């Protein structure tokens, strides 16, 4: 390095020390960024693992890619106020926006091919708080940890004929999902599905006391079981047409039931349902009043990140909400940067230019 005036000896020792300090700083930074840890499970890896063999559907959510928006209200009955100080549990009506969806990375997958259905939900309260959640109709999660979930995705995409067998052997909880997938009834309507939080969260009441909970949205509509073959005959996009027609005739309702863990119930493993007999409090009713296509709908640009919680609800020791938040953010960053690939843009452009 140049010096304004030369001394008898170049300060090689000092320069080497400076270089070493700067290199150490860069090294610690690189380590923190995961560049030196190729085995770290990053959100990018997790999101990439969802992609079908032909690559992800650009511009779409990387999972639960097929969906339709709804708007409505959450009618809080006030009963939840004993569990959480969040304003959403004070008796009143609060605006809600959500998204019915199918658990698939392919936005064009026929309905009858997708076993898991979900709901993204955002409830806003006048105090400025926002509660987002992403629920599914499966009453428990197929695997116990985010790492196992990643391995499950890799297994699904694996060409190894023994992949599934090996995975099931390493993750015995996965068999429960297999049994559910075979035996649980299909329905022909999003309105007939329950939607479960899956993950455990902590409700904090006015006194500061904490209550470990899970919640479910239980449909008011009677459940009419149907076989997947009969569902397939109704058409590849029956669910979206049906929920549009149904809500146009009458708002659809779900009761929000909050289940409180007993002392000793584990909260960290969403693959284990809590035993029967837990205290449950019905805290209100979700009412879907209007259906809108995702393309121009109000749910399209919302990331239904389950860690976006009002003051009065927080994450528990369940590792999934953090993993989901991290991966959802990555999915959101990707799809918003691919907006030109989303059909919305092309159709709008085509419509505006005669």
């Amino acid at each position, binding site marked *: *390095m*140049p*010096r*304004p*005036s*030369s*001394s008898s000896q170049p*300060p090689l020792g*000092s*320069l080497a*020390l*400076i*270089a070493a*300090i*700067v290199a150490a*700083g*860069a090294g*610690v*930074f690189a380590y*923190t*960024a*995961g560049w030196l840890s190729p085995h*770290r*499970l*990053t*959100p990018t890896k*997790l999101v990439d693992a969802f992609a079908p063999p032909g690559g992800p559907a650009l511009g779409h959510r990387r999972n639960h890619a097929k969906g339709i928006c709804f708007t409505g209200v959450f009618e809080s009955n006030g009963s939840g106020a004993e569990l959480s100080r969040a304003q959403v549990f004070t008796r009143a009506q609060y605006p809600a926006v959500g998204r019915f969806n199918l658990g698939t990375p392919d936005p064009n997958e026929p309905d009858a091919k997708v076993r898991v259905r979900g709901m993204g939900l955002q409830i806003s309260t006048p*105090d*400025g*708080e*926002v509660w987002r959640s992403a629920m599914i109709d499966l009453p428990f999660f197929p695997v116990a940890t*985010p790492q196992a979930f990643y391995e499950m995705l890799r297994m699904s995409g694996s060409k190894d004929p023994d992949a599934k067998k090996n995975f099931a052997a390493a993750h015995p909880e996965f068999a429960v999902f297999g049994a559910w997938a075979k035996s649980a009834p299909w329905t022909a309507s999003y309105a007939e599905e329950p939607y479960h939080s899956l993950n455990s969260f902590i409700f904090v009441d006015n006194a500061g006391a904490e209550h470990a909970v899970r919640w479910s949205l239980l449909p008011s509509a009677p459940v009419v079981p149907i076989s997947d073959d009969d569902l397939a005959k109704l058409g590849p996009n029956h669910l979206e047409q049906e929920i549009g027609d149904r809500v146009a005739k009458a708002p659809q309702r779900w009761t929000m039931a909050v289940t409180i863990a007993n002392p000793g119930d584990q909260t960290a493993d969403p693959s284990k349902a809590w035993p029967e007999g837990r205290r449950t409090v019905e805290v209100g009713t979700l009412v879907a009043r209007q259906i809108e296509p995702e393309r121009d709908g109000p749910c399209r*640009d*919302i*990331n239904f*990140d389950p*860690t*976006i919680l009002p*003051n009065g609800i927080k*994450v528990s*020791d369940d*590792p999934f*909400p*953090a*993993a989901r*938040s*991290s*991966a959802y953010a990555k999915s*959101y*960053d990707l799809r*918003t*940067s691919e*907006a030109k690939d989303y059909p919305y843009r092309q159709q709008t452009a085509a419509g505006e230019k005669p």
Partner: protein
Amino acid sequence: MTSAGTQFTVLQRSLHWLMAACILAMLFIGVGMVSTIMPKYVPLLATHKALGIAILVLALIRLGVRARYGAPALPADMPEPMKLAAHLSHYAFYALMIAMPLIGWAMLSAGAYPVVLYGNLRLPAILPPSEALHTLLWNAHFYLAFAFFALVLLHLAAALFHGLVRKDGVFESMAGLPSHDERAPVRQSAGMVRPG
């Protein structure tokens, strides 16, 4: 904007070292949180938002303090290109310290995310939801973060170069213990002992 002394004021040095700790923590939290799915992701993200706004506030205070108190003059024998680099790097620091939190805040706004600092303390959205703006701001936040860290390393290298090689008092003007000018005419002597 130069002051007569050879050292920054105690207030300036306090702000510098407090912000150095905040900014380093911020850069490491940022690069760490986006590469993990572990439970620590949630508190890291929350800390990143709150610390970012704290840095914004501190940077604005510091800008005012700098305008009020100035900075010690660089040594007269410093080559002009080096002086220019020193001045430009400090403009870059102030620009990044103020812009990065604003870009992050705007990015969250464009992404329709609530901006929660702590408990009930929230910031309003400063942009409407927009995919295009979210992407633009996300890219800016991402690449400028690496530029910021590179600038920090450059700053560190330059500071150590002043302290260990040139020994011209510039390092001590921020890092040294408070001293009285008349008792430590650091630059004068540093210039004098290097006659070439």
